[in-house]
């Protein structure tokens, strides 16, 4: 199974160029799509789920061209959108039953699959409760359950952990990791931690273009030797907070600790630390900003 995007372009009727020639090749495993808000992630997700047609370029999923065989592609696709809508008056079981029906699953097969996905997302005990009584995390799990119906080979999740509490976020990440073992899971997010913890491959989308495509490890390696930590005062904070290369600030017993990405030491007392994906991401955005 493989997803191949070639020169995908999307221009909206108002002239907004959301995608400008995206080339991507995605294979089995968890694939992260990272980018700031407005980078074009949701547009790319909607093209991958065939909700939107690209203005130009080709999309081939599992050997099928999206323009010629949309139904074949939809059969092997599960989708959890950014704003997951549900029918509040239905119970979790009824909701999955309804969507399973729309997927063309019938009779006993449908009943068995609904039970299976409910136990997979650990909602078996609340299956007869109405969706309007569910918490945000439970609703996200219902969302992933509906995406799993029909055992799709490609699952697309758009900003799945937004608005979840830390425990739910960890649970959800683990669930996605399990799913990615035997299929393609495309995870679009602007939360760097989600990609760092789960993905084997990633792409960085900026201004509608793919700026990086590879493993998170190789992306992080680029920030090696350019991530610094030093202690400073509250005056330093005022000055540094105006700059975009400040990654984080924390306070401990020694004082206020600043973490910045820069090609050279920002202070004499600064020491090099091991970078993480967030450092690499901030460094990348900084470079792009100066290049522009």
């Amino acid at each position, binding site marked *: 199974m493989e997803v191949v995007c070639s020169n995908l372009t999307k221009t*909206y*009727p108002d002239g907004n160029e959301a995608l400008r020639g995206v080339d991507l090749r995605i294979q089995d495993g968890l694939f992260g799509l990272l980018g700031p808000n407005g980078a074009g992630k949701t547009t790319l997700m*909607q093209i991958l*789920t*065939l*909700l*939107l*047609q690209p203005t130009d370029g080709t999309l081939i999923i599992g050997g099928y061209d999206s323009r010629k065989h949309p*139904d074949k592609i*939809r*059969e092997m*696709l599960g*989708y959890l*959108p950014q*704003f*997951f*809508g*549900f*029918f509040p*008056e*239905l119970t979790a079981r*009824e909701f999955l*039953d*309804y*969507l399973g*029906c*729309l*997927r*063309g699953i*019938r*009779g006993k*097969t449908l009943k068995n699959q609904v039970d299976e996905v409910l136990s997979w997302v650990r909602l078996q005990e609340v299956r007869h409760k109405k969706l309007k009584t569910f918490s945000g995390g439970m609703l996200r799990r219902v969302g992933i359950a*509906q995406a799993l119906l029909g055992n799709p080979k490609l699952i697309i999740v758009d900003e799945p952990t937004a608005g979840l509490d830390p425990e739910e976020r960890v649970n959800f990440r683990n669930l996605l990791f399990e799913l990615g073992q035997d299929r393609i899971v495309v995870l679009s997010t602007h939360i760097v931690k989600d990609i760092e913890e789960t993905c084997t491959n990633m792409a960085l989308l900026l201004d509608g273009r793919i700026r990086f495509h590879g493993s998170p490890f190789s992306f992080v390696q680029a920030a090696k030797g350019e991530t610094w930590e030093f202690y400073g005062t509250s005056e330093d904070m005022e000055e540094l907070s105006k700059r975009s290369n400040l990654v984080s600030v924390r306070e401990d017993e020694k004082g206020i600790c600043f973490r910045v990405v820069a090609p050279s030491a920002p202070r004499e007392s600064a020491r090099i630390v091991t970078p993480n994906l967030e450092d690499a991401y901030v460094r990348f955005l900084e470079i792009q900003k100066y290049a522009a």
Partner: protein
Amino acid sequence: MEESRQAGWTVYSLFKPIKAAWHLIRHPKRTVSNVVSGVAAVWGLLIRLIRWTLQETAFWFHLFRYTSRQFLRVEAYLSVLGAFAFFGTIILQDMSAHPRVMLEYCYIYFTIVMVLLAMNLLPRERERDTLEILWSQPMTRARLIVMQLITLSVWVFFLCLLVIVFFRRFTAYTEGSLMILLFVITSSLAVGAITVLISTFCRHAIATGLVSLLVMGIHFFWLRKLGPIEIYYNPISIGQVWNQNLNLFDILFDRICLFVLIGFILDYLFRRLKQTAKWFT
């Protein structure tokens, strides 16, 4: 995949009895064995067809039930109450003695009910963010919308049936009461299709309702001659093919024309929905 394989197998089994009959013609001496194999093939085909029909019926009933639960809430109860208040007033004013007036009011009332129900179909899905999930399913948008329209039309038909049975039982109203059911279900489908098409332009339920009612108002007041009641009493005659008094053929012809119109509306609607990136942005 499973579904298409099953459909393919059903089509293949259709040829089995034909093959058996052909064999019987070619080898008349082996009659007994041919007849046995022919009966077995027909029996197998029958079982398969019955199973397929049961599965499809269960499937459509399933969808019908869920669609009804989503869309028939407060509006449905209000429609029933409204129907009895509306027709009760007509009967109290002794207007039910004039069947034509009764039919016209019936037509106007059920058109308004259909607009009120259909104006929510797409805008409500959009407001609840369920549109993306529904449209990413393997079922086509066209099939989904047709299914929802049929569900609403069937409910409007039941409401009309309830009103007719009630008023036939308790008043002297009789003329055209059965024919109105045919008018209501077909006209509801047309009104529903127009309303859903308008909703793709207006995008909000209330605006859709207002524009649809305006369009229907134009139809009632200026294009009444093309309305079903007028055509029922003065059908556009295309020849005395059927019973002269009933003009059933003419009425059916009128309904066929309406279905062609529904076809054009739905075709344009589906073309629009294919291109509506706006719905998600």
